[in-house]
């Protein structure tokens, strides 16, 4: 008897603790946020771009020149370079993801997805990323390779230089560092490149196989230097001596040192959400969640009285646990994600409604309150399980297939379904059992909305 009450109190205190964590770790709610513990400071809600404002860019990566076995490596190198690039500009919490092509992801070709919270000027964002240089080394095409001819305005025919060269594996991803140097004789600025170990080997191989031929150094898709190889270069050093001005050369060195693209990319789609729109969406989401909670609480208490009140307390604990999980995992919240959370509140009390309706039925058939509680829980279990399975199936498949928008919804809904099984069944049962002491009297029967005994005996 006392043990049940103590257990219920412990759950209540734990729930309040979680709620306190959610509350105190939110800058908007905690007045002393600036001076609070760093653990709390590190766990605000993570808002998606549609709520915080920012830019969402999708790039296509051209990997056709890369051998299939190295596509993953190249894409990861690409992600690292862009991430470094974006970080350099002081964007807080950028998310750079690789989306691999294939049947399962539904994506045709390799893509790079860049999320920049707080950057609401797309132009600035695109420029930021566009400045990342693309460095490639190409060798002469075999004699007999068909070449594209270009006819210019005056009718002069020239060979397209791009068809004279073929790509090699050596790209900017193997670059260790670039330095600015001046030619000792001509005083012309030049850019000296140092490759890393893999790059050094590749470069040695390329130079060895192409003695007497040209090796073209491509920057951002066009050849800037086409030196003729005189001998094998085993030390991994190359020099670009275009006709640079000192400023140009210095800029290029800076760009190369912050990372060079391993494969060419092009922008497929962009999305920007202004900060004002994001903030109003957050406010509306919070308001909808509070109203939804109040409506459900009112419904439960009016219809089921004491059990309804207990279910409302369980719902509060459910909300605290879910919100704490959002913070700790962390889950990036979007408008759709908030919708998923709000719907999961409705689903969470579904289980309680099933149990309470069963309890009512048992009470009507003349059982005592204690009996009705235990029978209600055990008989309603199968219905609860079945209705949650179908929701869970939907959430999992949506998560598997979704874009970031759908994923947000699927994740919050799926988490809600799982946690609600715990809160609506276990926690509600512990609380209900703790109320054992009220017995089977008139007041108790009123609180459980049980039919009058007089009616039973009829």
């Amino acid at each position, binding site marked *: 008897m006392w043990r049940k009450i103590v257990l219920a109190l412990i759950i209540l205190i734990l729930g309040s603790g979680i709620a306190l964590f959610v509350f105190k770790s939110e800058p908007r709610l905690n007045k002393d946020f600036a001076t609070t513990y760093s653990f709390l400071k590190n766990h605000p809600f993570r808002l998606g771009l549609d709520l915080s404002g920012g830019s969402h860019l999708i790039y*296509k990566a051209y990997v056709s020149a890369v051998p299939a076995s190295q596509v993953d490596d190249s894409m990861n190198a690409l992600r690292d370079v862009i991430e470094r690039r974006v970080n350099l500009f002081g964007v807080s919490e950028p998310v750079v993801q690789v989306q691999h092509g294939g049947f399962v992801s539904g994506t045709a070709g390799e893509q790079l997805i860049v999320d920049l919270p707080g950057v609401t000027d797309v132009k600035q964002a695109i420029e930021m990323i566009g400045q990342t240089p693309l460095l490639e080394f190409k060798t002469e095409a075999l004699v007999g390779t068909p070449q594209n001819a270009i006819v210019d305005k005056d009718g002069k025919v020239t060979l397209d230089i791009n068809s004279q060269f073929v790509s090699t594996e050596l790209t900017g991803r193997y670059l260790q560092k670039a330095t600015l140097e001046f030619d000792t004789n001509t005083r012309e600025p030049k850019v000296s490149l140092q490759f890393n170990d893999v790059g050094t080997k590749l470069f040695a191989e390329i130079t060895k196989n192409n003695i007497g031929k040209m090796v073209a150094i491509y920057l951002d898709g066009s050849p800037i230097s086409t030196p003729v190889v005189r001998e094998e270069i085993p030390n991994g050093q190359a020099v670009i001596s275009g006709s640079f001005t000192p400023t140009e050369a210095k800029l290029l060195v800076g760009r190369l040192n912050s990372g060079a693209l391993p494969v060419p990319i092009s922008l497929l789609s962009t999305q920007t959400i202004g900060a004002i729109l994001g903030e109003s969406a957050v406010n509306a989401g919070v308001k909808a969640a509070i109203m939804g909670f109040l409506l459900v609480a009112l419904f439960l208490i009016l219809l089921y009285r004491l059990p309804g009140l207990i279910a409302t307390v369980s719902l509060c604990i459910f909300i605290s646990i879910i919100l704490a999980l959002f913070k700790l995992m962390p889950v990036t919240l979007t*408008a759709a994600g908030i919708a998923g959370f709000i719907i999961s509140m409705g689903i969470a009390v579904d289980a309680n409604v099933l149990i309470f309706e069963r309890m009512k039925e048992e009470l009507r058939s003349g059982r005592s309150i204690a009996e009705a509680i235990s029978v209600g829980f055990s008989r309603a279990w199968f219905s609860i399980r079945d209705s949650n399975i179908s929701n869970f199936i939907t959430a999992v498949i949506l998560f598997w297939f979704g874009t970031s928008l759908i994923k947000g919804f699927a994740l919050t809904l799926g988490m809600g379904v799982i946690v609600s099984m715990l809160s609506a069944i276990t926690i509600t049962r512990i609380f209900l059992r703790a109320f054992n002491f009220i017995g089977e009297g008139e007041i108790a029967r009123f609180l459980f909305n049980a039919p009058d005994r007089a009616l039973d005996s009829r």
Partner: protein
Amino acid sequence: MFIIKYKKIFIGISIILVAFSLLSLFFFGFNIGIDFKGGALTEVVYKTLRPTQDDLEKSLLALNFGSILLQPTGDLGYIIKTRDLNDSEHTLFLKTLSQDNKDTLIEMSFSSVGPTVGQELTRKAILAIILISLAIICFIAFAFRKVSKPVSSWKYGFIAIISLLHDVLIPVGLFVMLSHYYGAELDTLFVVAILTILGLSVSDTIVIFDRIRENLRNQNTIGKINFGEIVGKSLEQSFVRSICTSLTVILVLLALFFFGPVSTKYFALMLTAGMFFGTYSSIFLASPLLVLVEEWQKNK
């Protein structure tokens, strides 16, 4: 139970609603959004004064961006739909919108979706719909795996799928009407709403069918009793519960519709309709159909 007694009327109502949805789908068609079609959507709000629609249309036409759709929003804003815009086009576009910086404006949101991304998303959406439908059918098959008399278990499953189609088609019809009259667009959230309805409404039907089979089992040991009566009794026992569980979800969905973010308004409305008709179909369509099927069987 009156529902079983007047079953043909209730089944008729459902048939009429579905027919209406299919007709509106046929006549109005989908208004496909940029998520799937590709294109650009820009929302701007002017600081003090909004240029007239005619003026803006004229100057935008000069840009040669193809067909441009201008839609006023709020007191000072516009939503503009164009083909997908690249960076420099976007800059030019904003400059034109501000009438060469004469009318200062804030760009609330801008999204430009290239055609390849749109195609990809369409493929993904179709794949997700197929997979979820298959998974739900498997789940129904699993839930009704034990054969029961007098109606065999695959018929329960078949009727569950029919009522599921009903639950999805009516909100789709509603959405098509909304998109025709209020310009709602078929976007990713629409697909998510449809798939969520599948998950939410199937459980309701299964709960009631489970009750019917439980009562059938108990009845069989005592003696032969009219199938319609048992279904009626099961409905009587479970319809309050069925309505209450749906009501809690509908309550939160209504909160989401009335108070929630603009971006999820149609989503909430679709789900509300799905929940409502899901509950309606499990009580007024699926169970009457079950009795009807049993009667046909007997007459054969």
